[in-house]
């Protein structure tokens, strides 16, 4: 398949997943504040700064707003078009990518992307503030529906595998970020682990982390009511059966990569396969104690770094296909990965073409 088509499918899927995860973070944060019964403290900046940290663009946020409040953070993460990771930007990009491969996807998939796009275009910030959970539920459901439609209408060919890789790489990255930030907030250096477990407010916060991954019920089935940070981390990072855990997502991405290249265990044919195989193996043979003794933050940071490397290798292997003697492509030129390259210049030139 054309590299560009593969790339657009990958990014369409990735942006959709990113939008869904952002909606989850925001939804849970609202709920959390209600759970804590701190309505008066809804504006407490600490609870909102965390969301900006998850998407890690604190500087660009500070350029636009003076304070971390429900309103500013929601505006930035949902509606701001200058924030490339806002929900509206992600869905715009998912749609642009879908449009550029419209002949390769099913018309039902296209309709679903379109529907969410129009929903967001017509949503006013006010509706989010009056009914946040309704609004975020709409987005989550739209994403689920899109995945279900894809599952039922898209042939299981290479394109399908690129869609899976995009989705699961994005998901493992997002979960890693979420845990990292919450862990920072909940486990400050100066508090002992016992102290944290005692504190019921923190338990509620950890439950919120699970909820944002739709993991609370699945978690309870495994660990009953034993909610403590270790078991939660064990579940979100290492569980092999829960579809939003890091380990599960990495396994799923690995499967898809291997289907494309024909790699198998102990036999890889390119760097992307090598790196994902290594990560999967390590996740499978790591215990939560290994992770904690390394330091959770260090562990997660490294994990995010390595996920990014895998993304780069996928790009170099399949999308930026080049033969060095024809055009030596520097990886910097191949970046940034958005799927839609060229932006404004292409836009204006494409319009100039005289279609008689």
């Amino acid at each position, binding site marked *: 398949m054309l590299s560009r088509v593969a790339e657009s499918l990958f990014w369409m899927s990735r942006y959709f997943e990113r939008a869904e995860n952002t909606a989850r973070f925001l939804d849970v944060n609202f709920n959390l504040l209600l759970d804590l019964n701190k309505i008066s403290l809804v504006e407490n900046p600490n609870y909102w700064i965390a969301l900006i940290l998850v998407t890690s663009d604190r500087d660009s946020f500070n350029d636009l707003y003076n304070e971390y409040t429900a309103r500013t953070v929601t505006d930035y993460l949902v509606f701001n078009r200058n924030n490339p990771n806002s929900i509206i930007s992600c869905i715009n990009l998912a749609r642009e990518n879908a449009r550029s491969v419209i*002949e390769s996807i099913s018309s039902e998939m296209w309709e679903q992307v379109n529907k969410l796009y129009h929903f967001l275009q017509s949503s006013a910030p006010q509706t989010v503030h009056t009914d946040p959970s309704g609004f975020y539920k709409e987005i989550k459901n739209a994403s689920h529906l899109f995945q279900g439609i894809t599952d039922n209408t898209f042939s299981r060919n290479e394109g399908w595998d690129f869609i899976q890789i995009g989705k699961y790489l994005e998901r493992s990255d997002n979960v890693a970020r979420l845990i990292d930030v919450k862990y920072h907030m909940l486990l400050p250096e100066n508090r002992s682990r016992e102290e944290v477990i005692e504190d019921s407010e923190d338990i509620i916060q950890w439950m919120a982390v699970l909820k944002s991954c739709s993991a609370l019920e699945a978690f309870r089935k495994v660990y009953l009511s034993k909610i403590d940070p270790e078991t939660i981390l064990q579940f979100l990072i290492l569980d092999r059966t829960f579809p939003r855990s890091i380990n599960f997502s990495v396994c799923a991405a690995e499967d898809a990569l291997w289907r494309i290249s024909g790699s198998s265990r102990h036999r890889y044919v390119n760097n992307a396969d090598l790196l994902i195989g290594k990560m999967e193996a390590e996740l499978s043979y790591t215990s939560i104690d290994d992770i904690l003794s390394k330091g959770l933050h260090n562990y997660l940071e490294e994990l995010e770094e390595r996920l990014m490397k895998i993304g780069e290798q996928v790009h170099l292997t399949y999308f930026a296909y080049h*033969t060095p003697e024809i055009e030596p492509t520097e990886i910097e030129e191949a970046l940034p990965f958005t799927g839609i390259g060229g932006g404004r210049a292409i836009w204006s*030139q494409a*319009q100039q073409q*005289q*279609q*008689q």
Partner: protein
Amino acid sequence: MIRFFEQYKAETDRFFDEVFSSNGNPRVHYDKLLHRFRQFSPEDIKARREIINIFFRNQGITFTVYGVDEGIERIFPFDLIPRILPADEWKTIERGLVQRITALNEFLFDIYHTQKILKDKVVPAELILGSKHFAREFVGVNPPLGVYIHITGSDIIRDRNGSYMVLEDNLRTPSGVSYMLQNRQAMKRAFPVVFEKYKVRPIENYPQELLRTLQEISPPSRREPNVVVLTPGIYNSAYFEHSFLARQMGVELTEGKDLVVNDNRVYTRTTRGLERVDVIYRRVDDSFLDPLVFRPDSKLGVAGLINAYRKGNVALANAIGTGVADDKVIYSFVPKIIRYYLGEDPILENVPTWLASNPSDLKYILENLGSLVVKSANESGGYGMLVGPESTLEEQEKFAEMIVANPRNYIAQPTISLSRHPSFHNDTDLYGCHIDLRPYVLFGKTITILPGGLTRVALKRGSLVVNSSQGGGSKDTWVIDE
């Protein structure tokens, strides 16, 4: 029940009406259609309109209107009443087009080789050599089969007496063929019964015919030619059509960045490596095709493409530099061109044309701006034109200035009252809308013309401009067997 056609005013004293002759009776080939439509109630029409709207929306049949920042996608307006062409009239159009396209192709071959017609002073050399579409780089290059214009779509109109005339030759990248195909599908879905009464000649094989034509121009050494469509991308107004044609032909839709040239061969970049390309149906303008030869800032083209083409390793449809022959100034020479190369009289007439570059014509144009249609020689899509009778004095003055400043760029024609065809207004009543006809001509080893084409309708009441960018719509077009 509303009798749609009984309330319709044909105004045959002012216009040529496609359905009703001047005595007020319907033309024979419309009899059965009228009979059918008489049985429809407004509710029937509404229901069928709904079927068609859903059909178009689901297919995503949209076009983009320029001038708005992000570009707005709209459904292409469709009129429910088909236009019917009797077999004998169609035969004349067909013969006329074959003649015209053959002559224009010879003309292109000549001006890119020996330039005999310029030496014989039938066409002034400065008009060709000074044209912005003349591709100097391309002189002496032999396109496969000697064909330059593989896909064309001439615009044909009828004047007050109903004679068919060519208004414009579109020899670069004519668009709209996807609407022709979709209109037919929509009609079949909404009015199956009406179809049964007529022997409508099929057009559904267009994608196969197009593919065959493209395969025919492939480099001869390539057994199973790999054909691709080259699109400027999703921001182009005709992107829907590009993806539609690629899907219908079963070939890849590519953008410039999907293609790469190595050792004068063109390849697509795929997830499995490079794949050789033999024929490119390109919907990108000449000047954007290859940044090494034309505009260096082009983001839509492929570096090295033109050299690969010159070497004969890849075929382009249409060839480079065909715009020089569909320029509105050259248009006025087409009857002479036909006589020069074929020794025949033109079967399809031209619309009389005054050239602003010609001093006596210029004087006439400036004195009669209020009654003429003035067109810029190189624009298309209904942009850059002045419709005299519909213009204000201010607009006329502005155009006069532009014409005097750059006479080579302007021509003028009398305001032709295009023929009219009953069309629905709000699905409740009918009124006469001006129409034209764009048949699509394929030229490979032979010339193939699909029976019919796209009938464009100026749906704005009284308007003469049929372009989709200016509020036009379209109709299904039926060529019927005897």
